[in-house]
């Protein structure tokens, strides 16, 4: 029985302008367009990825929202009805891609930054040094020095530190969920910009070994692609406990995306679903996590910081404190807006808490316990621009991770169909004819541009704040004010309302 679900979008082809070159037909990854004497659209298949419209040489295609797919209701919104219809037809759990798209309240949008006027001068980043360099890794609370014949010397040996030229890393996106060309672009850009990319849980393709000093290699519950060689091809080893888009459940890679090379890299059979277990079956409590942390430190000869990635959930502060005490060097907190290659819609949209609150609570808790220096905090989950980044840093993040923004820089149009493996942009797909579309060099250039642009903007913000190093903004909540937030919200965020 064919589906009775109405089309979400209409593909409008202006046949006056169309030259019938069929480029759109070839470009659609979802099979929504065909050529029958002229271009014909199967509207129901369109996901509004805009590949056809972008590449139509005549500008003859527009995608429109189906204006009355569902009769208006303030409660029974179209997406709920669509989902019910889908489930009624299939009886399945619905999958989706990318981050939570529900209109939850954004705390970032209700915080504003400070600037200098008169009593302290702002600093001009065009004419004065402005420092963004950041080191990830555990810091001691004090340094010891000793007298040497040629002066004072450092006595303390620091734990391994990884340098970032700007306080950003790419979010964890696995090979499998995204294409090898996308991974290549991320690795190149990370190297070029002095930041890090993150393998996600899909292992590391051997082609990327030359970039290993700029890579976070992840160890997740499925242990895909994990071996001694892999661990030692990263600058940081990360234990993935959770992900903002799907806290409490494991990774999903639909079998459609497990190609020959993905299967080799992940060390799994070709074409099988790669569903990693919900928990790590060797981590049932915090002491088990500590064991894995030290096992990984041993495996890498104590030369790499070990990061633990968790999803932002209700009790995140206590969890983070435990992780810091368990010996992690970095904690990567992923908020409920964090992206995914595939996740059950119901989990993505309803589980987890906003990163702003989680970050504020974690930073506070670690300070109260006097152990903030022991870990670096990476925060992720919906960082959209340099303003979000600056606010996150002011709340206490050492660096932010950008996933969705990086994908958009590579061409992603946020159609949220990553899980289908049909990405027309060659990013979230393994179909060779689609992967080929993504030029890793061009995509890397766009990523570099994005990182450069955000870095420039961050410098501009720092200059306006009258400081010339990012560490003077880090955790400096005095430079944030809340607009339209409740007293409790302000209290959790540790900021004052505007006007105070």
């Amino acid at each position, binding site marked *: 029985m064919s589906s009775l679900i109405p089309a979400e979008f209409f593909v409008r082809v202006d046949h006056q302008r169309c030259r019938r070159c069929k480029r759109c037909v070839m470009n659609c990854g979802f099979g929504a367009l065909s050529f029958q004497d002229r271009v014909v659209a199967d509207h129901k298949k369109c996901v509004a990825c805009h590949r056809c419209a972008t590449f139509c040489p005549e500008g003859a295609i527009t995608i429109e929202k189906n204006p009355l797919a569902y009769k208006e209701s303030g409660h029974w919104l179209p997406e709920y009805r669509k989902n019910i219809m889908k489930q009624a037809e299939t009886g399945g759990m619905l999958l989706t891609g990318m981050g939570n798209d529900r209109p939850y309240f954004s705390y970032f949008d209700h915080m504003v930054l400070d600037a200098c006027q008169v009593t302290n*001068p702002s600093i001009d980043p065009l004419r004065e*040094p402005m420092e963004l360099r950041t080191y990830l890794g555990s810091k001691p609370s004090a340094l010891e020095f000793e007298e040497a014949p040629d002066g004072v010397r450092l006595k303390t040996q620091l734990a391994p530190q990884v340098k970032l030229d700007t306080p950003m890393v790419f979010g964890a996106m696995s090979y499998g969920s995204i294409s090898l060309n996308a991974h290549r672009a991320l690795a190149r850009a990370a190297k070029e910009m002095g930041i890090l990319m993150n393998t996600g849980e899909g292992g590391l393709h051997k082609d990327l070994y030359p970039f290993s000093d700029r890579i976070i290699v992840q160890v997740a519950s499925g242990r895909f692609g994990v071996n001694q060689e892999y661990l030692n091809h990263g600058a940081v080893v990360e234990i993935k406990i959770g992900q903002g888009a799907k806290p409490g459940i494991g990774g999903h890679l639909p079998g459609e995306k497990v190609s020959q090379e993905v299967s080799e890299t992940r060390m799994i059979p070709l074409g099988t679903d790669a569903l990693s277990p919900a928990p790590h079956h060797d981590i049932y409590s915090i002491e088990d996590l500590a064991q894995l942390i030290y096992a990984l430190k041993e495996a890498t000869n104590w030369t790499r910081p070990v990061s633990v990635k968790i999803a932002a959930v209700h009790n995140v502060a206590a969890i983070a404190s435990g992780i810091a005490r368990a010996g992690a060097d970095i904690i990567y907190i992923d908020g409920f807006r964090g992206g995914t290659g595939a996740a059950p819609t119901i989990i993505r949209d309803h589980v987890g808490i906003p990163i702003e609150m989680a970050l504020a609570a974690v930073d506070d808790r670690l300070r109260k316990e006097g152990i903030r220096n022991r870990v670096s905090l990476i925060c992720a989950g919906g960082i959209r621009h340099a303003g979000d980044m600056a606010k996150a840093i002011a709340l206490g993040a050492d660096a932010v991770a950008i996933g969705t923004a990086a994908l958009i820089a590579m061409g992603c149009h946020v159609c949220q169909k990553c899980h289908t493996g049909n990405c027309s942009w060659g990013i979230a797909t393994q179909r060779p004819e689609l992967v080929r579309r993504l030029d890793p060099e061009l995509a890397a250039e766009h990523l570099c541009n994005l990182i450069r642009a955000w870095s420039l903007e961050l410098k501009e913000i720092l200059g306006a704040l009258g400081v010339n190093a990012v560490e003077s903004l880090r955790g400096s909540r005095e430079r944030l004010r809340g607009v339209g937030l409740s007293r409790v919200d302000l209290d959790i965020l540790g900021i004052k309302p505007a006007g105070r």
Partner: protein
Amino acid sequence: MQQEFERIPSGCAISGIMSTKGRRMNGEAIIRSIALMHERSNGLGGGFAAYGIYPDFKDHYAFHMIYHSEQSKMDAEAFLEENFIIDRSEPIPTRVTPGITDPPILWRYFLQIKPKRLIVFGRVDSPRAFVVNAVMTINNSIPGAFVASSGQNMGAFKGVGFPEDIGRFYRLDEYEAYIWTSHGRFPTNTPGWWGGAHPFCLLDWSVVHNGEISSYGINKRYLEMFGYCCELQTDTEVVAYLFDLLHRQQKVPLRLVCQALAPPFWKDIDMMDEAQRQMYTAIRQVYGPGMLNGPFSFVVASSRYMIGLNDRIKLRPMTCAVKDDLVFMASEESAIREISPDLDRVWTAKAGEPIIAELEEGAAV
């Protein structure tokens, strides 16, 4: 303590004199020096720190107190009696001075720690930590009571008014010290609070500061992690606490403390030789949250040192000079020439470069 205003930005004048031989001078010169920079203050705050002024009580902790009421005095005294042997308790001598109105109750105590209390405190080895704790407790939990200074053989004299008037009010001509620092304040808001004037003191650290610390937010949170409470109305206190944390507690050499607070730029660190690069990289990695950012020049003193420091890009003025055993540091050269027209050497302090004057070995103070 008043807490309606959390932080009052201000511009300022500072001046400091030290005899590296420990020779003691009365307060006339420092008053003349700071008075010359009258234009840099607006009558809403002035103060002095003096070292070597209590030779008869040099091993006692001299607590200079500011009280807003008899009640706060009684509360603070109850606390002091519980923890200290009070060997002397007296009003700080003042004289009626035009321009100084509504002074609070100004009192000083010469204290020794009760040995038993030190044991209860649990850190027998650390009487200084005990005193820091006592200062924090009074400032934060006794309403209307404020510890202006708490060091040995030193004291802070400060209040609301022009600094030269404050100096005469406190009869500084009658004290002799081998280090004098002073401050004239131009706050952009007026709490009219005597405790808010400079210098800021903790133990024998004193800070006079011209500028605004734009990194105050994180400096404060960093210090809170180590038990310091920054609840006063100015960002200057963080400087005193950072010196206390890094030098007294963590034993970081003074020059490196200064370089942690105003560190070299990465581009300069990258060009250093391996050992230096490692050291300064580690300093920035570990002490980054303590780095002072924004425009400042300050003079920090302790019983053995007078230290001048500018921010990393020199957004506030500071001139230094030497004449025989005297070292001068001031916002303007004129403030030094005013009291010592002939100088052996005079120079402008470079951005981020600490100027450290140290008491000579064997100087009797």
